């Protein structure tokens, strides 16, 4: 093993060790005094050749030291084997180097004294008075180069200068590798031989030195006698002692008030005065929880609590939320699929019901935090509104009406079907006696029926589609007005009492043309003989297609409506004088239908949205009724003359009380589709409406003589029978003049009688 003095050697040394170390080298220096190296000593001394020393001559060593002479050895720098050691030794304190130089020189002494014994003596002496020789001037400095890297002298034969200024020569070294190896093999002390860098000499470490190195390497203290675990004496303890730790007298400044401190204090005082610095707030020691509602004061309820809308509570879970619900609450496959496809907001349940066999199988609900969070959001983000929940029994909403049974008679069942037409039957009319029925159809025929037997008595082919038909209401005249294209035909059906229809013909023939021809909007033409044989007596030729024709109650006048939008829409004709006139100067809109008042000289004109009432005598507008409908289709008047009903294409039926107001007394929305026609019964308090939905609704419409009592309207029967054809149902309704029967003509080319 080779000794490698490690670099921490110097750093870890306690002061005491330095003394010791110095002493060692000092000692070795002293030995060198008496041992000037023999010039030419080539080989290193063996271990046995110990350093000779004489303790007795200690006092002289300083003076003698300068005498020591070294022989210069040129080759010392080239010795590579010791370079490591050199480098390591560089870090050693400088005061060690001169002594080492001597130690190197020591083996060259010829003295044969045993080192060990001498060392021991020396040791004893050391222990006796350690401090006697411990002074800085005793340090032996042979080499005066100072603390420089020694490799600067590598190329020189000398290694420095002594006190006299003479060169100190390196010891001669001419060992080659073989020599070194041999020495390594032969010299048993080779491992404890180190080179002194300051002098270049080899030094053999003594046992004590080796021991010291070992101790230091282990991290122990260099001094064997040093006890690291001595009981510590705490000088600077927290306890107040009577004696000061140091003997130093107190500073003067400790007696004089400090200006800087004074400034600082005054600043603080000022800040406190100004209120900039506040004393630290005492921590509140009121309990966190106490009886908050100890003094419940009902008056403390703020006004805003009245506006407060408490949040609705979370919905309580139903059976389907159970971990083990009844099987019917579990979703089937389709339901599950539907649930997945629904928007999360639309779902009725926000979870899929599931069944677990036992409680330990139930997993955590992954949306638990979500749901709580959504609740939080609802609580602070959701706008609240107080909504009144209707808690009504639906039965209470149904109005209490007299029972239909108490309002009899009214038609209830279908009695007869009049078949014969091949196309839709547009219009119906009945003779004042109630024995004959006439119907006009799109198949360009007019058929006369016997009411009681449903037998077609007569068929009158006409030139075009029959738009309207009206039987003269005067029982003494047997005449039917038929609107066909641009003309109105006055037909004597020649049915019933022969006297009666004979009289009618006579009446028509008794006409004497006036002397002077008056300008008329229409042309009155007497029927040809061929036409006469069919029953047609007179033809009133208009300039435009005729939409509607209606008789005055007396049976002399009739009005016709033209499909036009000029002021020529409505014309009033007088049969007896074969005279027509246009009552209106200005058009007020598209006229839908017109009507004569049954008793008084009033004339009703229904345009799309309004019904205008004209006084024929005064020739002025008396009333304008707002129907609240989009498009009036038909109109009928109560035989009393004070009430009107209007049917409209937006499936409404408006009942007007003329005495009451110009707005409808009631709007009935019984039908689901457009109303085509409405009708009043002559005697019974009944009215009916036919609609495109194929039903006829018969209502009881009682009008009281007492003006204070409003009319009573009760639907009594829904009559169905007509089949829907081309989305059309019932086209016309008509009451029997004496019986509570109602006729209806439909798009299915039939006429039906309900009794």
């Amino acid at each position, binding site marked *: 093993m080779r000794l490698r003095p490690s670099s921490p050697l110097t750093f870890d040394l306690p002061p005491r060790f330095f003394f010791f170390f110095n002493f060692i080298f000092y000692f070795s220096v002293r030995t060198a005094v008496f041992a000037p190296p023999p010039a030419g000593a080539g080989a290193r001394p063996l271990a046995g050749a110990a350093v000779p020393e004489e303790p007795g001559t200690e006092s002289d060593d300083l003076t003698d030291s300068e005498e020591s002479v070294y022989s210069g050895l040129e080759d010392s720098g080239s010795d590579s084997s010791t370079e490591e050691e050199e480098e390591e030794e560089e870090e050693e304190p400088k005061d060690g180097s001169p002594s080492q130089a001597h130690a190197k020189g020591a083996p060259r002494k010829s003295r044969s004294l045993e080192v060990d014994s001498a060392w021991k003596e020396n040791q004893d002496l050391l222990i006796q008075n350690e401090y006697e020789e411990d002074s800085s001037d005793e340090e032996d400095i042979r080499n005066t180069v100072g603390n420089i890297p020694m490799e600067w002298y590598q190329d020189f034969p000398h290694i420095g200068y002594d006190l006299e200024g003479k060169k100190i020569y390196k010891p001669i070294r001419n060992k080659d590798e073989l020599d070194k190896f041999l020495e390594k093999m032969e010299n048993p002390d080779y491992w404890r031989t180190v080179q002194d860098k300051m002098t270049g000499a080899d030094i053999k470490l003594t046992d004590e030195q080796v021991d010291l190195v070992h101790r230091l390497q282990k991290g122990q203290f260099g001094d064997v006698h040093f006890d690291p675990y001595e009981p510590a004496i705490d000088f600077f303890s927290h306890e107040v002692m009577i004696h000061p730790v140091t003997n130093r007298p107190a500073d003067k400044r400790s007696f004089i008030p400090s200006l800087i401190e004074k400034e600082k204090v005054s600043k603080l005082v000022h800040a406190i005065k100004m209120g900039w610095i506040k004393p630290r*707030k005492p921590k509140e020691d009121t309990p966190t929880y*106490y*009886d908050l*509602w100890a003094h*419940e*004061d*009902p008056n403390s*309820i703020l006004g*805003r609590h009245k506006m407060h*809308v408490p*949040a609705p509570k*979370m919905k*309580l*879970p*139903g*059976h389907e*939320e*159970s*971990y*083990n*619900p009844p*099987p*019917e*609450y579990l979703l089937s496959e389709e339901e599950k699929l539907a649930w997945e496809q629904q928007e999360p907001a639309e779902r009725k349940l926000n*979870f899929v019901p599931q069944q677990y*066999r*036992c*409680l*330990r199988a*139930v*997993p*955590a*609900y992954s*949306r638990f*935090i*979500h749901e*709580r*969070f959504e609740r*939080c959001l609802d*609580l*602070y*983000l959701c*706008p*609240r*509104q107080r909504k009144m929940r*209707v808690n*009504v029994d*639906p039965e209470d*909403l*149904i*109005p*209490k009406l007299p*029972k239909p049974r108490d309002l009899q008679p009214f038609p209830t069942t279908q009695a007869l079907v009049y078949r014969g037409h091949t196309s839709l039957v547009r219009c119906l009319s009945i003779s004042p006696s109630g024995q004959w029925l006439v119907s006009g159809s799109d198949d360009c025929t007019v058929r006369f029926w016997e009411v009681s037997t449903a037998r077609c008595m007569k068929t009158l082919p006409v030139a075009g589609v029959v738009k309207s038909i009206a039987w003269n209401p005067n029982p003494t005249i047997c005449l039917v007005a038929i609107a066909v294209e641009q003309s109105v035909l006055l037909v004597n059906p020649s049915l019933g009492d022969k006297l009666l229809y004979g009289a009618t013909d006579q009446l028509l023939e008794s006409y004497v043309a006036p002397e002077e021809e008056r300008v008329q909007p229409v042309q009155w033409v007497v029927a040809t003989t061929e036409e006469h044989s069919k029953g047609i007596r007179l033809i009133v030729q208009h300039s435009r297609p005729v939409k509607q024709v209606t008789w005055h109650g007396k049976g002399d006048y009739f009005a016709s409506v033209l499909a036009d939008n000029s002021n020529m829409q409505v014309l009033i004709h007088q049969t007896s004088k074969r005279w027509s006139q246009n009552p209106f100067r200005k058009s007020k809109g598209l006229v839908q239908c017109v009507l004569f008042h049954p008793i008084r000289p009033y004339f009703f004109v229904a345009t799309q949205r309004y019904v205008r009432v004209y006084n024929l005598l005064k020739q002025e507008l008396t009333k304008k009724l707002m129907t609240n409908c989009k498009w009036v289709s038909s109109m009928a008047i109560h035989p009393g003359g004070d009430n009107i009903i209007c049917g409209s294409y937006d499936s409404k039926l408006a009942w007007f009380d003329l005495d009451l107001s110009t707005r409808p007394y009631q709007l*009935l929305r*019984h039908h689901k589709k457009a109303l085509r026609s409405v009708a009043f019964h002559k005697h019974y308090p009944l009215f009916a409406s036919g609609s495109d939905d194929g039903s006829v*609704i018969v209502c009881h419409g009682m009008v009281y003589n007492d003006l204070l009592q409003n009319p009573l309207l*009760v*639907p*009594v029967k*829904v009559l169905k029978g007509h089949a829907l054809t081309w989305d059309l149902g019932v086209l016309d309704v008509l009451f029997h003049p004496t019986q509570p029967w109602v006729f209806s003509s439909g798009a299915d080319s039939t006429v039906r009688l309900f009794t």
Partner: protein
Amino acid sequence: MGGLEKKKYQRGSATNYITRNKARKKLQLSLPDFRRLCILKGIYPHEPKHKKKVNKGSTAARTFYLLKDIKFLLHEPIVNKFREYKVFVRKLRKAYGKSEWSTVERLKDNKPSYKLDHIVKERYPTFTDALRDLDDALSMCFLFSTFPRTGKCHVQTIQLCRRLAVEFLNYVIASRSLRKVFLSIKGIYYQAEVLGQPVTWITPYAFAHDHPTDVDYRVMATFTEFYTTLLGFVNFRLYHSLNLLYPPKIEGQAEVELKPAEGEAYAMDSESYLEKLSALSASLARVVAPTPEDDMEMDEFPVEGETAEQMDAKKKEQEALEKQKKLFEGLRFFLNREVPREPLAFIIRCFGGQVSWDKSLCIGATYDVNDPSITHQIVDRPRVEQQVVGRYYLQPQWVFDSVNAKLCLPVADYFPGVLLPPHLSPFVTEQEGDYIPPEKLKLLAMQRGENPGEESEEEEEEEDDNDDNDEEEEEEEEDDDSEKEEEAKLKKMEEQKTQSKALPVKVTAGKVRLEDKQRLEQEQQSEEKRLAIMMMKKREKYLYKKIMFGKKRKVREANKLAEKRKAHDMAIKEEKKKNKKARRA
């Protein structure tokens, strides 16, 4: 025409509302602060009746607050605290940036803090108001108390929530006010009647949460901040109403044992004490010792207008309640380690039972498995090895079902490994016409004191009933269809007539048609009704149709459920038959 010009949107409802942004500007708060303030003060947006008017003619979607509410917020002292806090944070950041640690210390020392006491008092002027709004507070506290102690929110909050929740549970046990429990797939619902107010809360099952990322925990934390304050005060008051010590102390020895170690400190300060308390196994210490004759007879105060029957009903109800409170009295339960301990211990203790568990499971076990006096052992495993004679081994659902049924149910259905009967929600009260699951009918019969032995008969009867119902419904549907039928009939008649026209006249002996008078009458009535409905006003008709639609939908749903059940039962029956056959073969 004199007078001032009336400007639009300067009077009426337009001036009563304020949009959120305007409110925020008025309060000079940032949006998060405004949100916090609204949450704490319980301010919520209102939906104005005429939104367009309020919105100054615009139809843009905006949230509106009542102007009064916002003005009311202006005076709130907490608003200033918010601002102070903002300044504090700014200062602190600056100090940190300059590494002025002494300043940081000083600032932290003077950290502005606020209390919510006055807000609680203001939002709930009376104690009853507070109780009414306790549902959300409890659910939230129970949720927060299950959060992990890391991340998400402050540990103190979680601990406080846990503490308050445990305190409340202990109160419910002490007052025996639990009424209903329900095992849902979301968690466990409890309903207690606290001073006459029903309080419902839900606790999640004891699993770790997988915290969703799309949840704003700050909002939840703000709510919790308020709820903990509220719950603390409520707990205090509730404990005092029962003469219990608050902060709660465990009765008896435990107190003595713990006292030297803790001194005057709050019982919950020590973790172990909280755990002991949360074990729910010990009763709480009272200020005044309870007198033995606590359960006095209720005095009768006849109220005017109350008939004797009503009085009787009331008395009966009271008695039933008393009976329910003592449902598990005298029973000794032992909870196996696989059953959820806290809910079961809580429920059993609420109804006077004694409960214990394995010592290693939780603190507070009072007796051992081997205790011979145990009457019921709650087990949730398919089979139990080494059964001890003299006790029932039951699945946990028995406890829940018994509580809801207000009687100890027969144990046979709940043995370990047995297919459990469905667990029904106690919160559903079926009205007439609603679907009632057969299990519920059975239960109702049992509650009435009928013998559950004649199940099969009852079932048949039920089925019959169901059938009857179905028939009735079908009849109703028929009424709707009757018009069509009539039409069809008429058509037929017509066809016959036309045929008779075409064919040579032939008379066949007519059959005497027996007219069902009842049916006729019914038809007539329904027609009358239909006609009357025609005469309804538009508004009423709309309402009527809506109501009827809702009713019909309800009926449809009930029918659907009944059908499903029927199908299921049939399937099971067939399977049974098959099994039998297979066994025979």
